[in-house]
């Protein structure tokens, strides 16, 4: 008997198979890169490539462990429409997007939603203090960050990549912005974990991202929340984050320089070899 071809054979709403897994079972794709005992201060090796998109004014590819980010800058160009600019400062518009397939588990909706709006704002607030917007009167600068693969600490990696892309676009800046993610694991008297992987981030009771400008010693971005912690513990996290950014900074600087004047940069233990 011929079936009704117009009818879609399947349930109206589908769910990811992980929903039906026993509660204590953790799939391997979630625990990628996860090491139960690790040095709380370890940072994953990073790979940076600056200026590899042909159509953007500036761009950067940033890889930190399994986290893979593409950042690009377009502009400065004349701001069109919208509200007339207040004062003579240029505007920095940031977009933080995640690929629908970036994270393990169910597919994300490509339209993003609440989280992406919040992270776009966090990205903008972390970058604005570093950019000399008064040098670009009535201009519009657009920064767009795309997460290809989420291996944890994506906002931090996004900020780092975006500041490299801004530098590649020759935008005048006070300093490069380095950022670090932190997570506080559950349990009694835990210690902050620097640069958490995806699984550590999922398990964490507190997540924090610190964006830091090492030369001027200024924190340009701060976003964190979770279970209540004493002020001292938060302070400890911020301090650890700024130290992490200090360590990341030389790598960023060298890769920016390398793109401007190509000479093979020396390899350091914190960097991955060119794949």
């Amino acid at each position: 008997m011929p079936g009704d071809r117009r009818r879609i054979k399947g349930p109206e709403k589908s769910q990811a198979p992980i929903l039906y897994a026993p509660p204590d079972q953790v799939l391997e794709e979630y625990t990628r890169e996860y090491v139960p005992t690790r040095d709380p201060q370890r940072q994953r090796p990073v790979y940076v490539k600056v200026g590899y998109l042909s159509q953007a004014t500036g761009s950067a590819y940033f890889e930190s462990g399994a986290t893979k980010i593409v950042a690009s800058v377009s502009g400065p160009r004349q701001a069109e429409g919208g509200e007339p600019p207040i004062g003579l400062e240029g505007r920095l518009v940031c977009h933080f997007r995640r690929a629908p397939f970036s994270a393990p588990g169910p597919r994300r909706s490509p339209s993003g939603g609440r989280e992406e709006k919040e992270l776009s704002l966090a990205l903008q607030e972390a970058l604005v203090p570093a950019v000399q917007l008064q040098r670009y009167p009535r201009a519009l600068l657009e920064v767009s960050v795309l997460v290809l693969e989420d291996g944890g600490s994506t906002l931090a990696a996004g900020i780092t990549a975006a500041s490299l892309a801004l530098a590649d676009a020759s935008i005048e800046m006070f300093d490069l912005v380095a950022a670090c993610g932190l997570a506080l694991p559950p349990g009694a008297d835990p210690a902050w974990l620097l640069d958490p992987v995806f699984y550590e981030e999922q398990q964490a009771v507190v997540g924090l991202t610190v964006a830091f400008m090492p030369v001027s010693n200024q924190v340009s971005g701060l976003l964190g929340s979770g279970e209540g912690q004493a002020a001292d513990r938060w302070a400890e996290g911020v301090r650890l984050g700024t130290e992490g950014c200090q360590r990341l900074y030389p790598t960023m600087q060298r890769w920016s320089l390398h793109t401007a004047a190509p000479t093979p940069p020396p390899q350091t233990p914190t960097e991955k070899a060119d794949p």
Partner: protein
Amino acid sequence: MMFVKLVVNVRRCSCYPESFRQQRIGTQEDLRVDGRGCEDYRCAEVETDVVSNTSGSARVKLGHTDILVGVKAEMGTPKWERPDEGYLEFFVDCSANATPEFEGRGGDDLGTEIANTLYRIFNNKGSIDLTSLCISPREHCWILYVDVLLLECGGNLFDAISIAVKAALFNTSIPKVRVLEDEEGSKDIELSDDPYDCIRLNVENVPCIITLSKIGYRHVVDATLQEEACSLASLLVSVTSKGVLTCLRKVGKGSLDPESIFEMMETGKRVGKVLHASLQTILQKEENLGPKRQKVGFLG
């Protein structure tokens, strides 16, 4: 008619006599344009149960900032990742009455930003007991729609909104329901006949937001619009009544020195504790007046 207007006034215990402090000039010297010290809140008026069609409501006036919050409880299905919990939904409406800049879609970005911050401070197990909002796991739960209305903007929106949200949640009463199961396993939900048979939420651990605006080398709490204009960067912390911090966020286009962040967190903790204590006493006092309380409303 008896009018009850409740006033929360958080003032720091100052080690200086008032007259001495008034002689000092500028924020640096712990004196602000309106005569407050750096850690002083403006006078806040809090009134609960102001709108009749809600499960709970509150109105907070903090200087020229005027906030109205309504909570509506509706039944829905729990989220799949949290099958035995209800949840909260926030919406912040920046009406054009507040400032002309909100005309059209002008207030949307600010509204989303505030709503996202509220989601963030409530996104932990400690703030509010969400399991009490569950009716039957995986099937039914209460969803609390928290709608925030900005009636007037006079600076320090975040703090005023968080106070109003806490007061409205304190005031919220959700009808009691029972789940009846018959022999065939089908479930029925029965609503209690008594309209006063309600569950109340425990808001003891609901945090309040304290915004610390950096002006010069000092930071101030509860900045007015003028002070906000002078400040390049602020730190937003959410503090519970026990003095623990649940959220930390830098706001604005400036940057902050790490040392000043640590100082600001300490101030936030100190101010937050005092604020919570005053708010709790006031809410309790109003509650104890019972149904015979006369409402002040919007013209009071």
